[in-house]
């Protein structure tokens, strides 16, 4: 056979990144046109924070070092931030990609010179940007409407930044990995939402983590959301709350290690489970 290999013009790293960036834009534009996804992944934590802040507005959740009461809004903000990262990353991507697999989107993309890496850049970029918007909205709402004291210490913001970024990356990659779990787009919500919901209940999003029985805390400690929420608590809760945590410490190195391990697990999962299409099905 004579050689008919075209000059490689398509697969250069610069091109893959450039197309990846165009995917981010496309993903975000189309995401905000899907009302149900926007509500259940983008606005949901905002709604929950509002409900908790209003419902428990007369309840004190503890005192800071100066003896001031900690409000419900302050207490729930870290949990809702963590939940937002989980929803924008894991829940949204897992359901979205499962849907794209079953409705033919991925099959169409598979027939184009789009690199899988560009596609992933688009998905992770969308999770990151919608996640940042969501976190900004949560912090703004908490600060302006519910009088939550937003930290001014740059060290706290640095912690917030790395916990958030590592959290989004881990959750997004896990979302890509979990998208292989539902057998069809229709069953995707039914498969993914219970996982996400249970995690939220046992990881200190809706229920005070430090009040859970130790064995349940230990179970939750296997999963990434508990660590994500713990990292967020270290940013927004007074240092006096540290005493209630396991080992009486925010254990930020533990947060980094746990999220890092799950990131690697997610990468391996995504690597071995993601296919544009199921061949021969």
């Amino acid at each position, binding site marked *: 056979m*004579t050689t*008919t290999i*075209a000059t490689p013009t398509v697969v250069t790293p610069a091109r893959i990144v450039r*197309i990846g960036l165009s995917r981010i834009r496309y993903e975000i*534009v189309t995401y905000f046109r899907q009302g149900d996804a926007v509500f259940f992944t983008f606005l949901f934590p905002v709604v929950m924070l509002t409900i908790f802040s209003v419902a428990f507005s007369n309840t004190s959740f503890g005192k800071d070092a100066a003896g001031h009461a900690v409000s419900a809004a302050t207490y729930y903000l870290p949990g809702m931030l963590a939940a937002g990262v989980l929803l924008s990353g894991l829940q949204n991507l897992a359901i979205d990609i499962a849907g794209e697999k079953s409705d033919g989107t991925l099959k169409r993309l598979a*027939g184009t010179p789009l690199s899988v890496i560009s596609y992933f850049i688009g998905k992770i970029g969308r999770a990151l940007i919608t996640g940042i918007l969501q976190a900004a909205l949560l912090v703004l709402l908490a600060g302006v409407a519910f009088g939550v004291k937003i930290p001014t210490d740059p060290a706290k913001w640095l912690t917030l930044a790395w916990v958030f970024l590592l959290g989004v990356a881990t959750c997004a990659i896990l979302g890509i990995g979990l998208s292989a779990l539902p057998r069809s787009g229709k069953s995707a919500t039914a498969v993914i939402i219970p996982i996400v919901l249970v995690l939220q209940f046992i990881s200190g999003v809706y229920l005070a983590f430090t009040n859970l029985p130790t064995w349940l805390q230990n179970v939750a400690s296997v999963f990434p959301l508990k660590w994500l929420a713990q990292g967020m608590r270290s940013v927004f809760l007074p240092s006096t709350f540290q005493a209630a945590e396991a080992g009486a410490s925010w254990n930020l190195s533990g947060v980094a290690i746990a999220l890092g391990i799950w990131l690697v697990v997610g990468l391996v999962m995504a690597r071995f489970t993601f296919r544009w299409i199921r061949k021969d099905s």
Partner: protein
Amino acid sequence: MTTSTPAVEVRGLRKDYRGVHALLGLDFDIQRGEPFALLGPNGAGKSTTIEILEGYRDRSGGEARVLGVDPQHGGLDWKARLGIVLQSSGEQGAATVREQLTHFAGFYPNPRDVDEVIAWVGLEEKASSLIRKLSGGQRRRVDVALGIIGRPELLFLDEPTTGFDPEARRQFWTLIEQLKAEGTTILLTTHYLDEAAQLSDRAGIVAGGRLVEIGPIDTIGGAEARIPVVRWTRGGIVHEERTERPGEFVARLSDEGEPERLEVIRPSLEDIYLQLVGKTDSTPVSERA
């Protein structure tokens, strides 16, 4: 790059699905710049064949080369030279026509102009509409537009005009004529024989996982299949006679008195096709050189 190798080469192509033989050994070539149609009833193996060539399915046996590359191992550079119009899908369609085409154009090294393609498929007025708000036929035109946006050397069209009204089909045919004029190789599957006759020079007919016929559209089935049929009724009984010389035959026939309900029927492409796919025990043919 050589242009002398065929765009598509298929030898002994086989496909089994869990012990079921979907393809039993297909042989055909498609030359560069040639429009070629695959015809056949549902379940005959048309889509299996086209999806193997597009790289979506792995073959169980035989050889396949698409633009000189084994489709099972076709990389992104190879995909950049193809245009694929799949059978219809149910995508979300949360982008507008122009957004979708602009976005996909960015995947290709040398794409066509987006507005030109929108005009080609007749969607100028819908360019700013969300794809999910379009009718079925309009969405199908978006599929076709996405298939040609990358300026493909080889275009796969899997039942492209399903859901088109007659006018849209005519428009589509004009579009394909333009692509042919540019030298695009086209592999088309269709249920519409007039479409195959209109768009392609040669066709292959797949039935029961075999290629039962292949050749120029106007010789498919052979001269034999095109012999006219004279049909008439006499004494309440319908008679039929196949003859190369129907005029002579009818003249002789009328010597015995005027035949009732006399017809001379030239088998249409459809008749020939139905005859071909109806033969279940048909043996596969090799391509005539």
